C-alpha cells in the first residue's frame, strides 16, 4: 500500500466523521491555541516594552550614564554592595560627557528613577502623589516631550534655580480643568512654583498614564531633596545606529572625568533601553518556560482522547479490518492506516490550533496596543507536538487493529 493511499484513506475516514473528529481534536486545538496565542502575547509584550516603555523611560536613540545599572537583579549581593560605594553622578560628570558629544542631539542631567512624589495644590484643589523630576533643559528633547502650552524649562531656569514647573497633561487637566494653567502658582511641599508650560500627552502604556508629573529645574529639585543617588546623564543621538559607538565614547569621557587608571573598573554604569528590555525579559523567561509545560499537559490529555477515540474506531471498524485483511492487507498496512489517521487527526488539531491562536493573537493586536507576534518556533513546537502526540497515542490502537484475526474480525458486526 503506497503512502499516498495510506494518507488518502486516513483523510477519507476523518472526513466521513467530521463532527467526531472535531470533538476528538478539541483538547489539542485548545492547548495549541493557548500555546500560540500566549507566546504571541508575551512576544508582543516584549516588543511593546522595548518600543514603548523602555524608550519612554530612557528615550529613543538614547543611553544613560548612571551610578548603578538598571537591572541589579543580575548581580550578586557583594557587587551590589560595592556599587553602593560609588560616587554620585555630578554636574561635572554631565559636563564632561556633554563636551565629549558635540554631535549628540541632546545631553541632559536629571534626578532619575525612582523619584519622589508629593501632593500638588492649586487654590483649594490638590492632586496627590505626583511624580517630581528635577531636570536640565535638554531633558525635554531627550524624552521627546512636545509642549502643548507655554514654554519648556530653559538653561536660565536651571542656573537661577527658579521655582518654575512644566506639568504633565493629566496633572494640568486635573488641577485647572478649564482655567489656563500658564502663570498660575502651585504649591509643592510648601514652596510655590509658577506653571510655565504643559506638555502634550504621551498616552497610556498598559493602561498606566505616564502623563501625571512635574518637571522642575534640577537645581531647584536638589534644594528640596538634595543630590539623589539616581541622578542620571542621558545622551540622545540622532540615529539608533550611532548609539553603540557613542557608548564607548561616553565610557572614555567618564573614565577621564573620574580619573580612573587603566585596569580600574568603571565606577559608573552605561545603559541603553536594551537593559530595560533585558530586565523585562528575565521576568517573561519564566512564562516562556511555564506555558509550554502547561500546554504539554493539555496535549497529553488531548492525546489520550485521541487514543480512546481510535480504540473505539478500531472496535467499530473491526468488520472492515477483517474485510481488508481478507483482501490482502498485511498487519503493517492496517497499522499504518490507523496510525496515519491518528497522526493526521493530531496534526490537524495542531494546525487548527495554530490558526485559531494566530487569529486570537491578531485580535489582541487589533483590540489592544500590544503588537502580538506569532513566532515561527511556537508554530513549529505546536505542529510537532501535535504530530508527536498522534504517533505516541496512535501506536497502541493501530497495533491492536493490526493484530486482529481476519476470520474473527469479519464475523464482527
Amino acid at each position, binding site marked *: *500500500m*503506497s503512502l*499516498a*493511499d495510506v494518507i488518502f484513506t486516513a483523510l477519507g475516514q476523518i472526513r*466521513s466523521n467530521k463532527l467526531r473528529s472535531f470533538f476528538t481534536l478539541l483538547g489539542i486545538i485548545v492547548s495549541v491555541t493557548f500555546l500560540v496565542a500566549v507566546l504571541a502575547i508575551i512576544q508582543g509584550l516584549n516588543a511593546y516594552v522595548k518600543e514603548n516603555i523602555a524608550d519612554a523611560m530612557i528615550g529613543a536613540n538614547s543611553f544613560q550614564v548612571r551610578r548603578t545599572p538598571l537591572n541589579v537583579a543580575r548581580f550578586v549581593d557583594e557587587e551590589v554592595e560595592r556599587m553602593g560605594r560609588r560616587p554620585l553622578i555630578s554636574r561635572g560628570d554631565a559636563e564632561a560627557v556633554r563636551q565629549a558629544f558635540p554631535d549628540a542631539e541632546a545631553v541632559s542631567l536629571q534626578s532619575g528613577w525612582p523619584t519622589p512624589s508629593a501632593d500638588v495644590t492649586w487654590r483649594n484643589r490638590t492632586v496627590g502623589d505626583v511624580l517630581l523630576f528635577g531636570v536640565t533643559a535638554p531633558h525635554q528633547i531627550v524624552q521627546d516631550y512636545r509642549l502643548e502650552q507655554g514654554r519648556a524649562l530653559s538653561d536660565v531656569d536651571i542656573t537661577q534655580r527658579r521655582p518654575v514647573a512644566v506639568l504633565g497633561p493629566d496633572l494640568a487637566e486635573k488641577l485647572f480643568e478649564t482655567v489656563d494653567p500658564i502663570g498660575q502658582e502651585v504649591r509643592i511641599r510648601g514652596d510655590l512654583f509658577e506653571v510655565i508650560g504643559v506638555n502634550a500627552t504621551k498616552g497610556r502604556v498598559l493602561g498606566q498614564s505616564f502623563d501625571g508629573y512635574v518637571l522642575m529645574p534640577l537645581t531647584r529639585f536638589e534644594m528640596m531633596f538634595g543630590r539623589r543617588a539616581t541622578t542620571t546623564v542621558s545622551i540622545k543621538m540622532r540615529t539608533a545606529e550611532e548609539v553603540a559607538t557613542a557608548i564607548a565614547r561616553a565610557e572614555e569621557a567618564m573614565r577621564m572625568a573620574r580619573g580612573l587608571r587603566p585596569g580600574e573598573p568603571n565606577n559608573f554604569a552605561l545603559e541603553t533601553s536594551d537593559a530595560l528590555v533585558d530586565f523585562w525579559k528575565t521576568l517573561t523567561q519564566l512564562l516562556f518556560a511555564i506555558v509550554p509545560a502547561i500546554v504539554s499537559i493539555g496535549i497529553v490529555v488531548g492525546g489520550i482522547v485521541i487514543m480512546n477515540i481510535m480504540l473505539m474506531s478500531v472496535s467499530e471498524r473491526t*468488520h*472492515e479490518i*477483517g*474485510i*481488508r*485483511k*481478507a*483482501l*490482502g*492487507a*498485511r*498487519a*503493517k*498496512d492496517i497499522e499504518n492506516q490507523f496510525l496515519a489517521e491518528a497522526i493526521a487527526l493530531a496534526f490537524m488539531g495542531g494546525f487548527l490550533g495554530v490558526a485559531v491562536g494566530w487569529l486570537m493573537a491578531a485580535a489582541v493586536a487589533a483590540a489592544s496596543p500590544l503588537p502580538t507576534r506569532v513566532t515561527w518556533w511556537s508554530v513549529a513546537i505546536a505542529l510537532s507536538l501535535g504530530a508527536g502526540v498522534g504517533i505516541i497515542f496512535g501506536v497502541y490502537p493501530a497495533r491492536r487493529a493490526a493484530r486482529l484475526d*481476519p*476470520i474473527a474480525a*469479519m464475523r464482527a458486526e
Partner: protein
Amino acid sequence: MSDQFGSGNPLTTTGEHNMSNTAERKAVVQEPGATPDKSWVIVTRGLKREYDMGGEIVRALRGVDLAIRRNEYVAIMGPSGSGKSTLMNLVGCLDTPTAGEYWLNGMLVSTMTDDQLARVRNKEIGFVFQTFNLLPRATALHNVELPLVYAGIGSDERKRKAKQALEKVQLEHRMTHKPNELSGGQRQRVAIARALVNDPSILLADEPTGNLDSQTSTEIMKVFEDLATSGQTVIMVTHEADIAAHARRVVVLRDGIIASDDRRSAFKEQMGLV
C-alpha cells in the same frame, strides 16, 4: 431448474475422464512433501485443524486430502459442523492448519507467516461472501479497487482494472454508487468483480446466494457458470444441494473428513435431483 444442467462441460461429461481424474487425485495427495505439478491449483494432504475451546480440543478437520485442478468448478458441501467453513478458511489462506500440507498454485501455504498469507490472499484468491462484505462507505468502484490498493498498484491502473472488472459483471453504470444504493444481486456482483480484479488462481465463494432471493440467486449462479466456462477455477462452499448441483464436482464433508467426492451427475442422482 433441471434443464439448466442439460448441456454439460466436455471435461466432466465423460465417465472415463473422471475415472482418470480420480486416480490422479489419489496419486497427488499421497506424496507428502512433493510439489504438485502446475495443473493442480489446490492440493491438501492430511489437512487437520483443531481448536482449543477452553481446554477441550475440537477436531474441525481430521485429515482432508483434496486435489483440485485448474479450471475446475467445485462445490464443497456438508451440514453445519461438518468442517466446511474451516476448510474454506484454510483454502482461503485466512487460517493455518494444525497439521498437514496445503499447496496452492505450487506454493506450500501451510507453513507461511501471516504477512505471506496476506500476500497470497491478495494475489491468488478472490473471495465472494454470503454477506457480500463490501465497505459500506466506499463506492462500488473503490470496493473493487481495494485488492489492487494492497497489491501496490498505482491509482490510474487500479481504476482501469476495476472498471473492467465491473464491466464483466455488467455494473459499469453503478460504479459510483455505494453498497446501500445497490440491490442484493448488484452488491454480490460488485463482490464478484472485486474477487476477479486481481486475476486470482481461485474464486472462493462462501454461500454466495445465501442472502439472495431465488430469482437473484439464479442470476448470480449464471455469473459463476459463465466464469467457470471461461476457465476460472471456482470453489463454492454451500449447504444447499441445488446450488452445489451447479458445480461440475461436489465434495461432501462430514465430521471433518471428505465423505464423498463425485462428478455432478453422480451427486445429482444421489440427491434425487434428476
